[in-house]
């Protein structure tokens, strides 16, 4: 394998699981015998994958963002109210949504880094504030409607020979993935991982720890805004659109082998974790597993995945795990 193709440590297992699931899908459902089936899967998974990228930035730098689910709901509800069916409003509302997402991230980041409140508490507070504020503003039920132009990104696509219809969301996803990969390979991205690994070392090395961690939250807020555009287009306006997304996306990121507490894991793996989760749900659906059991399976899977990652590697790489432990201890102490 050439150096350029080398994957970040810990990425391979999730890719293997994902490959197995995709093959299983091909056997389980006739829809997956053509590229269109997989494109539809990607389209469904795109919002979660984009959220996973944002959450990855926060988790790898040693934090949590529990506010993304309520932020997605807030964005969709705000967009519907502001656009209210008016096509000409689409452009500035999209800009407003990105700005709002970034602002929420900025507030999360500043409170975490400047007031030294653990990010778990900050984003939990933000979750409560957002949930409350949006519904206070809308009077309890979302009003207004999204414009057709707004909904295009989430639900429409364009025709390509051989592939069939390619959804716009998949194109957007591809662009964001490439941008995220380049970001993580650059100096800022590398330092961000280093912050999660050993904050003190980065600080002594002259890195701006506070600024980097705040940036992670801003990126997470932006990803929630983009995910809201896709979900709003795909599923329409509802007050439940972001429900439970925060835990689902943390599940996805952890499934991708990203270590809670920071410092380990790749952005591609985090995204693959999201796609794996979504493929798993599609497969369970095809196999006729009811909705209730779906969450039970999700629970077993994440425990098993994390247990495999920590105990499995313990058997082979005693030394590395010990180092990991001490570094987890440090990040926990800092929180």
């Amino acid at each position, binding site marked *: 394998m050439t150096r350029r193709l080398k994957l970040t440590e810990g990425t391979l297992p999730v890719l293997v699981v994902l490959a197995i699931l995709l093959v299983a899908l091909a056997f389980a459902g006739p829809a997956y015998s053509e590229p269109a089936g997989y494109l539809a899967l990607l389209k469904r998974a795109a919002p979660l994958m984009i959220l996973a990228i944002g959450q990855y930035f926060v988790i790898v730098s040693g934090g949590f963002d529990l506010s993304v689910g309520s932020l997605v709901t807030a964005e969709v509800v705000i967009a519907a109210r502001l656009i209210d069916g008016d096509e000409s409003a689409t452009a500035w509302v999209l800009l407003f949504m990105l700005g709002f997402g970034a602002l929420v991230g900025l507030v999360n980041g500043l409170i975490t880094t400047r007031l030294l409140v653990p990010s778990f508490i900050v984003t939990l507070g933000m979750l409560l504030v957002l949930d409350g504020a949006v519904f206070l503003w809308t009077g309890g039920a979302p009003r207004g409607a999204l414009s057709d132009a707004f909904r295009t990104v989430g639900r429409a696509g364009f025709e390509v020979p051989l592939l069939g219809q390619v959804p716009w969301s998949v194109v957007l996803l591809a662009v964001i993935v490439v941008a995220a990969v380049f970001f993580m390979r650059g100096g800022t991205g590398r330092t961000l991982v280093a912050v999660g690994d050993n904050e003190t070392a980065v600080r002594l090395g002259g890195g701006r720890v506070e600024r980097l961690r705040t940036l992670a939250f801003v990126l997470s807020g932006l990803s929630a805004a983009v995910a809201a555009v896709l979900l709003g287009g795909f599923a329409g306006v509802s007050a439940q659109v972001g429900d439970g997304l925060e835990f689902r996306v943390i599940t996805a990121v952890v499934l991708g082998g990203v270590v809670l507490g920071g410092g380990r894991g790749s952005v591609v793996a985090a995204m693959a974790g999201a796609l794996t989760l979504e493929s798993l749900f599609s497969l369970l659906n095809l196999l006729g597993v009811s909705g209730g059991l779906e969450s039970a399976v999700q629970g077993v899977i994440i425990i098993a995945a*994390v247990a495999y990652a920590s105990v499995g590697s313990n058997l082979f790489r005693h030394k590395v795990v010990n180092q990991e432990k001490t570094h987890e201890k440090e990040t926990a102490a800092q*929180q």
Partner: protein
Amino acid sequence: MTAIADRPAAPQRPAHDRPKWTQKLTPVVSVYLALVVLLIVGSVLVAVDGGTLLDQGGILNILTRSTTLGLVAIGQTLVILTGKLDLSVAYLIGLCSLIAAETMAGDPGNIVFAVVLTVAVAAVVGLVNGLVITRLKVNAFIATLGTALIIRGYLENGYEGPAGEVPRAFQHLGYDRIGPIPISTLLMLALAGLAWWYLGRTRGGYHIYAVGGDEDVARLSGVRTQRTIVKAHVLCSIAAGLAGIFLASRLGSGAPYVGTDAGYDLESIAAVVLGGTLLAGGRGGVAGTIGGVFILATLDTIFDDLGVTPFFKDVVRGVVLIVAVALYARRQLSRRGK
């Protein structure tokens, strides 16, 4: 202006140089002071609105709200003190309310068995949480989130609404009171006292602080850290199970989502943190937690009396949480600065 100019270095001043009264202002003292201030401000606000906050009904309201949250938060305190956290309590409460109500099935003869069975099931869930965290080395956040999802799957699969029936005799637990104080609140406070005694006066309690302070140091000092963590999780789940039993007795039946609708998972963590316990573990206690619980319950009651919409409550709750923890963090910062 002049006051500020006179003491330019006040924030940087080391702890032992600060005025004596601020040193006495531990988180526990501050949380109860905040509670008193809240009660006074709330009484005034409600009075201006034309009502009374602390009449018989108001006190009853605050205490009843505090009872369930208090039970969950006492358990959560033990877990958070070891440096972990438990996200599975909300679904566990629903599950336990169902087990209690379905086992009783309206027959007073089954009460004892039902309570024992419910507590046992809760203890097993806590045991699983603890073992997954210590033996399989799964991060507590993920382990208990996983448990929560598994219980949720079971509930969603098997139940659509309330089930089971609690006999009249058992509903006394939920509704009887001495003067304005519900018996259940006294039981909750007794449990808090027990936890306070356990944490502050017994070897097991010291071990919990030791593990939360630094797990490696505790292990090297001969503390059985894994056993301590498992114990904390079992006790936490039992406390949640008791909350489920109490809710079943109030409702007259079991309800699958009674715990999650009230958000007891995040709410109990909020109460613990509001009470001055460090989320990273090792410092804090039950006394502060109970203060935090009373603050949250009082806020809720004040808003109800003022007719504020439930959504505004969430906003305030979020802001209070962030501000309180930010204040604690500042104190630690100034202490560390010396």
